[in-house]
């Protein structure tokens, strides 16, 4: 649902009064500066006040470091699962007809409409230790979903479901079928064609969708704070850690972790943008 390709080609509009163009450009820059750049700058300034050394010290405290690690590995694992299931879902939606297809297509966008807080609550109700599923898993296999990392991954999968699907779908839709048909003529079976022809053609949207969902997952709060348990060093993510630091007036800790999360997010966003640009370029060729 969210569109995923910013333009690469800049198209100059017809020559016009230069002040008009300048006016519009400044409006755009002012808008972004006021709303985005200033808040971002103030947090960087706050966290770097004591120098990089203090920042490092705050991040390397066991609780902070552990929160960061937990966030990174759960988000990464989620991104991988999302990449696989998202691609399969997109494939099924584009290539097949089946009863309930329209419903499936509508469901894909649902997570964007549900407040994350509600997602968390619902997951606890469904899979928590007192639920049918949760209780069974706990008693039979001593596995816990909710209040443990699997619950985190589950919540992240819910919230990020649309991203890979909606990235892959349009590309798959407008894929040039020549290569696949050629491969078929040469005797390749459907599975081989999928692995050797289709999938490689899709790697850009898959990668950009997966990375985008990874970036989003790092900052996820509303669902995680309900579902995760928030035990320091065991089930506390970076975003929840920041929340705790903010609420207990520990600015240094909050700012330091926020800076790390923001820098990571920005780096990821730049990579995603670059991937999309490549996608546009490839499509034009």
């Amino acid at each position, binding site marked *: 649902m969210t569109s995923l390709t910013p333009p690469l080609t800049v198209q100059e509009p017809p020559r016009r009064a230069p002040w008009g163009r300048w006016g519009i450009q400044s409006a755009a820059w002012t808008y972004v500066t006021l709303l985005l750049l200033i808040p971002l700058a103030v947090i960087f300034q706050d966290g770097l006040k004591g120098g990089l050394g203090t920042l490092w010290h705050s991040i390397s405290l066991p609780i902070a470091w552990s929160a960061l690690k937990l966030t990174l590995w759960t988000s990464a694992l989620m991104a991988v699962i999302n990449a696989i299931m998202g691609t399969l879902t997109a494939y099924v939606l584009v290539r097949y007809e089946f009863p309930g297809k329209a419903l499936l297509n509508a469901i894909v966008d649902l997570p964007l409409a549900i407040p994350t807080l509600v997602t968390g609550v619902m997951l606890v109700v469904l899979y928590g230790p007192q639920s049918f599923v949760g209780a069974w898993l706990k008693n039979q296999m001593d596995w816990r979903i909710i209040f443990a990392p699997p619950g985190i991954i589950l919540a992240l999968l819910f919230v990020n479901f649309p991203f890979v699907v909606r990235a892959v779908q349009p590309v798959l839709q407008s894929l040039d079928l020549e290569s696949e*048909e050629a491969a078929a003529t040469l005797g390749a079976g459907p599975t081989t*064609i999928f692995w050797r022809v289709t999938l490689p053609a899709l790697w850009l949207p898959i990668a950009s969708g997966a990375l985008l969902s990874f970036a989003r997952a790092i900052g996820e709060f509303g669902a995680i704070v309900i579902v995760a348990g928030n035990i320091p060093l065991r089930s506390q993510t970076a975003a929840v850690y920041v929340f705790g630091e903010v609420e207990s007036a520990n600015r240094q800790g909050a700012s330091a972790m926020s800076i790390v999360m923001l820098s990571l997010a920005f780096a990821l966003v730049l990579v995603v943008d670059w991937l999309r640009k490549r996608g546009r370029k490839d499509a034009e060729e």
Partner: protein
Amino acid sequence: MTTVAQSTTELNAASRRPENIRSLSAWRRRLLIGVVVAYAALLILAPLAALVSGAFAKGLGASLQALSDPDVFSAFLLTLKIAFLTVAVHGLLGTVLAWVLVRYRFRGHWLLNGVIDLPFAVSPVVVGYMLLLLFGRTGLFAPLLEALDLKVAFAVPGMILATLFVTLPFMAREVMPVLESFGVEQEHAAATLGASGWQTFWMVTFPALRWGFIYGVILTFARALGEFGAVLVVGGGIQGRTETLTLFIYRALDERQYVGAYSAAMVLGLLSLVLVIGTELLRKREK
């Protein structure tokens, strides 16, 4: 290339499949479809079903009664107010932003383009925290606010700013691809015929953009409806003053008002869903 607008209509066309490929055997195909459907069902549908059943746990009457609580009403009103304002701001400025990024070349283009994607990835807690650093009692702008007798933190303006931040990408990202595929030839033609910049935009460009614009508005609105973390940190959840519907849900859970909480959550989800599906239907009809 990838707007909601385009992908859904193309999807509604018959599925495209290479002509001569030997299809997966029927059972394997069914298995694949089955796996995908099961995944979607377990992951997405099941929690939603739990939500609906929680809302109606004590019957439709109890649900409606919970929703008629004056607190629900004022929280919902606040949510809507913030959402409409957000849409108005981004509707205008987001379009401007899209225009600037598609039509102009300039230094820092990559930065502007990259930075507007950031809100997707920034944690809502961090958003709230940034605003507190700016507008809190000891914040950067505190002296200015003091002088102007303005409250931003722990008041509605702060929540509006938080919502503006998190919804910023949607408008631009929906409009940009459509604007790009539209191209400049018609605009050039209009200019040749003597149209001013404004006229060209309104009569030539905007009509072509309008579905991208509408989808941008809808997505911005839906996202604004569901905002929680940022408005919690910057607003404080003050009953009667800074409590949006999501914060009301949070409070209702604390007060053991489960039917009320789930019913309100259902209302939010339904509203967003209706908006998205409604827009798609409208679009299909126009075609």
